[in-house]
């Protein structure tokens, strides 16, 4: 958005004018007050509260007996947590890579003056409108070994076809990847398509005049100019991955055993059903750390870019 910074100058002179202390001057602050209070309490206050709990021995109810870093030590000695973190690495990595790949390729394909582009785009993107619970329910049925995809292939004549990932502890995490990619890749496509449409047409014409073919033009000129879109898409996708909770709940419920748990499910189980509030809080703080590690550099570059525009 190029107009963002354009009018800030005029507003400064406005507030610099000698103030009549009337209700009108207070009004902006008064109407913002509820949001400010709620944000400070319910986001930052609660964050601190959870941080405090993660240093206590809270079990079923919060207690304030401090035990230092004990909960974090327990956390990283907990096999289930390590499985959840490993799963997040596999799930997040594959989910992001495949979504980016599919998103870029489909966007470029769709950008070739395709007939019925609108309809195709609509089809690619509709899963994004659906809840992860519905997605999980659908894929649980599609991937189930008795009646699902496996049986379809066998009935089509592939008699030895085997597809039991959903009940295989080593493979179940890939089921999460499949369902999540189905849901989110169309969204990445939409991001890139919007980006492609924003690329300067003259630049492309110039490249063609210089004798570059379509492939070279994409590789050397168009894709590099989409770097910010790559960046945004990666941040959004990793954010989706770290927060993933409902997909696991619906598709695998963490199973078999806890082989498909993600950190969000670990946190929920320990805080709300296993009476391990301290441990659950510690896991929530680690999740927060992961998100901030990705987010802060991103916001920093975004805000800085805005100021320099």
């Amino acid at each position, binding site marked *: 958005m190029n107009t963002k910074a354009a009018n800030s100058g005029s507003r400064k002179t406005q507030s610099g004018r000698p103030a009549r202390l009337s209700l009108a001057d207070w009004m902006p602050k008064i109407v913002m007050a509820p949001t400010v209070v709620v944000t400070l309490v319910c986001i930052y206050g609660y964050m601190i509260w959870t941080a405090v709990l993660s240093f206590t021995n809270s079990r079923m109810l919060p207690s304030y007996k401090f035990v230092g870093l004990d909960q974090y030590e327990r956390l990283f000695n907990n096999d289930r947590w390590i499985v959840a973190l490993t799963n997040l690495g596999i799930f997040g990595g594959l989910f992001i890579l495949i979504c980016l790949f599919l998103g870029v390729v489909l966007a470029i394909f769709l950008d070739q003056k395709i007939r019925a582009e609108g309809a195709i785009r609509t089809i*690619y993107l509709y899963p994004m*409108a659906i809840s992860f619970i519905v997605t999980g*329910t659908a894929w649980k049925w*599609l991937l189930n070994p008795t*009646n699902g995809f496996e049986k*379809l292939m066998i009935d089509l004549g592939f008699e030895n076809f085997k597809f039991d990932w959903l009940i295989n502890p080593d493979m179940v995490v890939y089921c999460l990847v499949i369902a999540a990619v189905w849901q989110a890749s169309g969204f990445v496509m939409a991001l890139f398509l919007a980006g492609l449409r924003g690329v300067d047409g003259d630049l492309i014409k110039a490249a063609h005049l210089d004798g570059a073919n379509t492939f070279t033009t994409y590789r050397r000129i168009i894709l590099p100019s989409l770097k910010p879109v790559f960046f*945004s898409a990666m941040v959004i996708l990793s954010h989706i991955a770290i927060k993933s909770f409902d997909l696991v709940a619906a598709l695998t*419920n963490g199973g078999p055993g806890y082989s498909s748990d993600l950190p969000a499910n670990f946190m929920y189980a320990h805080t709300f059903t296993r009476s391990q509030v301290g441990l659950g809080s510690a896991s929530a703080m680690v999740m*927060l750390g992961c998100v901030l590690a990705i*987010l802060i550099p991103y916001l920093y570059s975004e805000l800085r870019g805005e100021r320099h525009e």
Partner: protein
Amino acid sequence: MSKASIGRQTTWVEKALRVALYTVLIIMATVYLMPFLVMLLTSLKDVEEIRTGTLLSLPSTLDLSAWSKAWGEACTGNNCGGISPYFLNSFQIVIPAVLISTLLGAINGYVISLWKFRGSDLFFAALLVGCFIPFQVILLPMARTLGWLGIANTTTGLVFVHVVYGVAFTTLFFRNFYQAIPGELVKAARLDGAGFFTIFYRIILPLSTPIIVVTVIWQFTQIWNDFLFGVAFSGFDTQPVTVALNNLVNTSFGGKEYNVDMAAAIIAALPTLAVYVLAGKYFVRGLTAGAVKG
């Protein structure tokens, strides 16, 4: 490729590439559509047909009994009244939460972009972080708070939670939109004696229709599809439809009725799908608004 050759005649290579391009696009469209198609087919079969047939086999008769069972009789947990009460719960949660969070977002965005005060930019940055925190960090304190306020396990409580954590996004949407409004407009109106609310109501709101549509659709989709808050903060009778669906699918009395599961899943997805089909343009704009600048 020289410029002269473009458009004058297409060689057979280009034609073949075109065909390949369309083939890939259509195959992918089929892949995206397949899960929904299978859900629909499954919901129209009876249990016996599901057992003997495959995912893609067509139902022999058009059997809507799975749909009526999902709506009115299926058991979610211990409750055997179908998912209809929870479907209504979702509306009871979504409608007020969307309205309140959109209104607050509009006012906040108006202040942050046109009535800046000392600290308002800093606050906006702080709020932005709120868009992205993993909600696991606030789950337990919020549960305690709802208890103290006496609205634990109620739809009111869920409305409250969705407003609190939705306001960050709605503010972001309106703020970005209002940034494009020239400050002179507000200045001139002030010189004419118009106050804070008059300017908002008479000048800003009439300009805001597109962003209101985007925000309402975004919030509707987000809140309708929520599961985490629903499962953490609702009671047996106040569950939103996503939680009820999950319970229905994971309830196993006797044989698994996949047709009922699929019908229930489609019912739970219908409102947001309808919004997407009817207002897809705005839906996409909302999705990309927070993601790509401009």
